[in-house]
């Protein structure tokens, strides 16, 4: 019988980009939560060592093996990065608003951005970066939106708490700001 740690490592290898939740690991490995968390932490520590080019991440609640940032330059000699997959400025603004204000309606987003966002929301929905989260208790019962685990993965976030605090601007600071 291989060690649970070896089995966990193998499962993480199999799932690849899809990633796996802590709960799935618990049910497949038939293991206590404390134990799997200890194993995952150990694996993460081990892979952090400089002798490894791969690391274990937990973006958006999914455990995944991925290459380290440090090996970029070498990796990019092998691959050509498709820049078109990165999100545009307007997509980023819309996502930022949703991440900080969720659940939020389209109209509320548009009030902050000052432009129509219908097409943008549709695009973000297709890319699975946001999802519908019920309806607001307002006239017309507008759809509410919130970000998805896919969003968390796109920005290397384990939880929304990791987002930087919203800046506060005071008039004393105006010199440095404007």
């Amino acid at each position, binding site marked *: 019988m291989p060690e649970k740690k070896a089995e966990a490592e193998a499962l993480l*290898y*199999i*799932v*690849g*980009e*899809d990633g796996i939740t802590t709960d799935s690991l618990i049910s497949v490995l038939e293991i206590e939560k404390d134990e799997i968390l200890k194993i995952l932490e150990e694996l993460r520590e081990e892979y952090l060592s400089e002798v490894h080019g791969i690391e274990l*991440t937990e*973006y958006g609640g999914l455990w*995944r*093996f*991925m*290459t*380290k*940032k440090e090996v*970029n330059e070498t*990796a*990019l000699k092998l*691959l050509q*990065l498709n820049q078109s*997959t*990165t*999100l545009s*400025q*307007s997509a*980023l*603004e819309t*996502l*930022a*608003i949703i991440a*900080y204000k969720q659940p939020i309606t389209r109209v509320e987003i548009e*009030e*902050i*951005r*000052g*432009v*129509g966002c219908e097409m943008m929301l549709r695009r973000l929905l297709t890319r699975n970066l946001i999802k519908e989260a019920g309806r607001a208790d307002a006239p017309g019962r507008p759809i509410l939106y919130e970000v998805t685990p896919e969003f968390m*993965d*796109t*920005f*290397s*976030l384990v939880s929304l708490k990791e*987002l*930087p605090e*919203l*800046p506060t*601007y005071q*008039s004393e600071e*105006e010199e440095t*700001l*404007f």
Partner: protein
Amino acid sequence: MAMEDFVISIDRFEGPLDLMLHLIREKKMDLFDLDVSLLCDQYIAFIHANEERGLTIAAEYLSELAGLIEMKSNRLLPKRKTEEEIEEDPREKLIQRLIEYQKFKDISQILDRYQKERSVQFTKTLSYPEEVRIMEAADNSELKVSPYDLMKAMNRCLRRLNISRFQKATYSFKEYDMQDISREVENFLKKEKESVSFWDLIKNCTDLLKAISIFLCVLEMIYKKQVVYTLQQEEIYLKWSEVYA
């Protein structure tokens, strides 16, 4: 109104608020003690300069412009005493909106950095469950090949079928008769008692156009209620509707 020779294209801005923040910064105005008249003049000049260059101005820019003009004219006119003071000061409101927008603009730059960092961390794709199924089938057969031979052969087929991936392009035009395709799909679906996955329908396609034609055809059948469908784990399943037949 004198405008610099070099005019930034309106397409470079994310919207009227983005434009206003740019003008405020450029003219070194104080955002917290905003000179609405000056901002309004700058804004109009900018819109005009862009119009002269033949650029389309989105409706959002014009509606904010109307608000600015109203604010400017209200400041020029003597205030009537009857007006209720409780009413929200539109200038204060605009300042708050600009500050709020600036916050998210700053955050979006941080997010941009995060996504760039993430985009150079690579993962491998899921090890396909199909491989498992192939091995099970091979176990029951009497063929004298190893499951791995079968797997290799299957993977070769899958790769050959991978028509959606960009390859060296050669142009060829082939037209499909929708009626032919429709008949083909109908026969295929009628033949099966259970539901059929969409992948089963298109897996024999040799080009993308045919796959798309089949998809359109299926959409029409769903619309005509000839076919019922369901979605499971991102896979479309189709069944010929007996109600119609």
